[in-house]
């Protein structure tokens, strides 16, 4: 809907955040699911969103920050269009994950945890995607790729 905004300029994310908060208000143990849903909606947890959650759930901001920085799932910075997660679990490590990562990082010109300059990919190493018998494994967004070689890995990524 392209209706003219009201008198004050509204944060475009506020609607999404409020939706999540309405669902969790008053529930016990709501913080982590609320953070998870806001992150799905916004792609990351912005400072504004953390403040809104703090007010909405009546939890001190410091505590929310503590939780958001404790769990690796939460990101406080935006990521690229596609998230490439290269597994560095035991099976993948033994199966040559290091070379897969090296090929992807060289192919995209970024290092672990970074986003490409065009904002298309963020590369991250993770600790086991649960497909260990197909090691080495990576996920691009929600698609899993197994039995990778350095060549097949970068090829698969570039197809996105």
């Amino acid at each position, binding site marked *: 809907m392209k209706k003219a905004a009201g008198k004050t300029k509204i944060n475009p994310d506020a609607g999404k955040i409020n939706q999540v908060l309405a669902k969790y208000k008053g529930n016990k143990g709501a913080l982590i699911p609320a953070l998870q849903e806001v992150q799905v909606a916004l792609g990351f947890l912005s400072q504004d969103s953390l403040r809104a959650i703090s007010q909405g759930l009546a939890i001190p901001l410091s505590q929310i920050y503590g939780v958001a920085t404790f769990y690796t799932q939460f990101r406080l910075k935006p990521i690229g269009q596609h998230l490439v997660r290269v597994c560095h679990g035991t099976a993948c490590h033994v199966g040559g994950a290091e070379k897969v990562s090296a090929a992807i990082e060289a192919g995209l010109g970024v290092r672990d945890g970074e986003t490409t300059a065009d904002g298309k990919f963020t590369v991250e190493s993770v600790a086991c*995607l649960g497909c260990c018998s197909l090691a080495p494994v990576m996920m691009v967004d929600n698609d*899993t790729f197994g039995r990778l070689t350095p060549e097949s890995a970068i090829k698969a990524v570039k197809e996105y």
Partner: protein
Amino acid sequence: MKKATSKTLPKKKAVKKPAAPDYRIVVGLGSCGIAAGGHKVKAALMENLKKAKLNLQVSDTGCVGMCYSEVLLDVHDKHGQVYTYGNMTPDRMPRFVDEHLAKGQPVADWLVKASDRALPDDSFYAKQKRIVLRNCGQMDPEKIEDYMAHGGYQALGKALKKMTQDEVIKEVLDSGLRGRGGAGFPTGRKWQFARGSKGDKKYIVCNGDEGDPGAFMDRSVLEGDPHNVLEGMLIAGYAIGADEGYFYVRAEYPLAVERIKMAIEQAKKRGFLGKNIMGTKFSFEMKIKEGAGAFVCGEETALMASIEGQRGMPRLRPPFPAVSGLWGKPTNINNVETFANVPWIILNGAAAFASLGTEKSKGSKVFALAGKIARGGLVEVPMGITINEIIHEVGGGIKDGRTFKAVQMGGPSGGCIPAALGNTIVDYDSVGQTGAIMGSGGMVVMDDTTCMVDIARFFLDFTQKESCGKCTFCRVGTKRMLEILERITKGQGREGDIELLLELAEKIKISSLCGLGQTAPNPVLTTVKYFRQEYEAHIRDKQCPAHSCKELLKYEIIPEKCIGCTACARVCPVTSISGQVKKPHVIDQETCIKCGNCVAKCKFDAIKVR
């Protein structure tokens, strides 16, 4: 359809329902099947079926265990024969549809298992005993009717209607079932404690955090047979007097989460969840919580803190969860696989379960076989089997015909068992004696190209990052151990480093609050115990016997073999290779970064790695 005239058709047929399908085809769509391209295979199959007019039914299933030959596809024919095809690709679909489905001739080359013939891969199943995995790969996990057709929810009915709470607990106690999450605490005893705790509100928690990198048992069970776990939790809930349960599942397992949600909805509709279950006084609510990526949240007190919405930091026990758990209420927490054993035990009796296994470890155990093993996948074997049997018979030996060096059991809390101890039996105490632990079931197999110092470094890197930071020795001590291991693998190890590692290991073990720190040194302790000479080679001779640690490798050109084609020099990213065309080249050791590009490029086997 042509209308049948009364003349051509015998009377009976006119009243008959549609004929049973000639074939039932089942595509393996667990995470591993999907990763190997399961959806593409299924799409190609459907496409090919459009053309062929056949009377058949296509459905999905979870992981069957033969992950090494995904994508798997089962064909059930009307004579009761079952054929399993392995390594299926979209390209294989036309021939498969034409030969097997249209002409009735199974494509023998692609079969990995069949009920009418012997095949080499039969040894994968010969020594397995499937209790937890009994339905995995045998039914559609998204259909409660399938689960019920396989005896699902009968154990719950039996427990609720024919057994008292104490009788249920006694059955589990007598079965000898021990926790499958790692520590192996007797499940019946845990339930007794929770039942004995006073309180109007009690909880059941299912630990599906599965943080051990290299393990995927719980994922496969949750994806392949979610109702079985749910039923186990309900029985536990009845036994201890709880009315609310939580599934705690890793965030990295979206398919498992989806299937559990589905299972919960279906169970509610059928009256297996909610108020007055199966017409009894027992009521139960189920919730699902997704983890947020923290290994330490697998530890029970941290897990509960995480459900409560806090940082997942372990706390001191006692009080144990059975006394004061979730929101301070008595809570019983078990692993996914532990719960998955319960319905079978209730239906078949404690004695049947206890007849399997060893004196102190009863029943079967699911293992995730991965690493340098020929047949990586999910297996369930009776306790008491030897490690050699699992690796060489079930697992088909080492990949590419290399030599078995060690197997890592128990993940970051466990250790490496050397090939020489391959006759160790799988039982909590025997595995414990090697310095490793039974753990949750991860088995990562290593061959002669795996460096044991590097493996120790790998695990310390993991635990150091995952330490929650509460205990100083766990937080700082693991960091110091990691630094030492890093310098050893880089060729900067010093005399006395091994002793320093051992000293730190001891201190960290005794001064950490939770299992993470208490067991973090195990990978180092076991590798030093069994592979000390490898540490010494790194430290004294600056050599990596497995040729794995990059900084210690030396690339050299063998002049007799080099024909001077310049291929290597062209791929060297740091121009360390020089020489004239058609003359042997040389590598400058000072500038070489050991990337390995030259070896991969050389067609004449002229580059030696030391």
